[in-house]
């Protein structure tokens, strides 16, 4: 069998076997594993990534020079707003103070956050830029570093506009919010953390709507027989109390 293979083929087979052995030896023995290993490429990628330029310097650096503005800002509503949110990336300003970062002064910038948008969380201060002192730059009344409104909102409707609108068309329109709710002073500063009180008992409504109540124009009902198992607000929405309650 083996004798039948021509001599030149045998020699060729030996040459091919040597080539294959050499390739395997180069690939697995001579070539450094780091050339084949992905770890090497990954490390160089990480190095390239780490070496990238920083554009935003970070919130704490600004205070080392701009002490006054930082002190003012740290007490106001914008205390958690980073300087670079409004002034833009400032790493170049730190490297060379002559590169002044921009300071937005018109009306266009503030409304990015403070224009009314129903998707925004309730309690976030928002205005309608069309009717809120049109053409006046925001800075004339509100200092951006300590944006206290010229007057703290006295009316609840400043934030609770939807409820105020509903109530204004209801029989309760002339009753002030504070008749039923007591709002601690802190509620204006931390609206979500400090909530105003809500009347939760039947006796509270009975002060006007009970049979013995002195209020003349309020509809009177007998609290001993009327919906005794329920609290008043479970059938009557207090901000828009219908004459006849929703039937259950």
């Amino acid at each position, binding site marked *: 069998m083996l004798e039948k293979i021509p001599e030149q083929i045998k020699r060729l087979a030996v040459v091919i076997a040597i080539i294959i052995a050499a390739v395997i030896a180069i690939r697995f023995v*001579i*070539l*450094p594993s*780091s*050339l084949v290993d*992905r*770890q*090497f*490429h*990954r*490390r*160089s*990628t*990480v*190095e*390239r*990534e*780490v*070496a*990238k*330029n*920083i*554009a*935003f310097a*970070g*919130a704490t650096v600004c205070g080392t020079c701009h002490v006054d503005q930082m002190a003012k800002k740290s007490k106001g509503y*914008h205390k*958690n*707003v*980073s300087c*670079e*949110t409004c002034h*833009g*990336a400032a790493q170049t300003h730190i490297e060379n103070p002559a590169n002044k970062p921009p300071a937005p002064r018109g009306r*266009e910038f503030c*409304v*990015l*956050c403070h*224009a*009314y*948008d*129903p*998707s*925004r*969380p309730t309690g*976030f201060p928002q205005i309608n830029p069309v009717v809120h002192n049109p053409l006046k730059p925001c800075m004339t009344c509100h200092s951006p570093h300590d944006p206290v409104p010229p007057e703290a909102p006295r009316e609840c409707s400043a934030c609770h506009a939807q409820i105020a609108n509903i109530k204004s068309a209801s029989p309760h329109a002339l009753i002030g919010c504070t008749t039923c709710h007591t709002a601690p002073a802190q509620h204006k500063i931390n609206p979500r953390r400090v909530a105003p009180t809500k009347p939760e008992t039947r006796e509270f409504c009975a002060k006007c709507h009970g049979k013995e109540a002195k209020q003349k124009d309020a509809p009177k009902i007998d609290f001993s027989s009327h919906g005794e198992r329920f609290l008043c607000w479970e059938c009557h929405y207090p901000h828009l109390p219908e004459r006849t309650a929703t039937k259950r």
Partner: protein
Amino acid sequence: MIDRRKFLKKAIWFIPAAGLFRHFVKEGHAKPATEGYDPANHLYGMGIDIDKCIGCGRCVEACKTENNVPKEPFFTRTWVERYTIKKDNSVEVENIESRNGKVGDRSTESDVLRSFFVPKLCNQCEHPPCVQVCPVGATFSTEDGVVLVDSKRCIGCRYCIQACPYGARYLHPETRTADKCTFCYHRIVKGLLPACVEVCPTQARIFGDLKSMASRLVRFKRTKRIHVLKAHLNTEPKVYYGNLDGEVR
């Protein structure tokens, strides 16, 4: 013309030369990327507080400045979506563009049940589908939990862009390679916050180290009801949404 004897003599020299070359490559390998930073001690993640996002787009703007992302709205590493849920339970999703500042007035639409903003970015998955599909091994997870792209290896085939279930990747029009959020890797290894977290005016984005019990992110995860996007895909995202509506995909 080289004769056989000369060729064999030169080939003998090749072997020790290769050994020397191997030694030098190993030397380069051992150098750490950043002084005093050990990626094994960190695992990064981000929390997003839906109740706080006001959809102002500062994060998108800052990301583009920090990472040289093209300014056109089509190219984004992070973006903000507005979800509007109608009374008939239909859901509308639109992308809030970074600079326009104008927001559609939905207050007149009486059929809206609720509406809110959802910032989105690369979820830096524990099991990233984009890494699995890359034919040249150009994208990978680092030890500290960030998925990076090797822009010199990437051939721009767009497989990963297709594979990402969150649509978080795009093809950079200048380099013609895949690009994505890196949690601002060049910032976080130096102890800075990612640019989007830095500029967020309402702290809707919370960045932190999952391996540090004192990090804000760990506290956020403990105190909020946490959801991740497309949990059924088992990608194990490291972007955690607090108080997220069930309609968000």
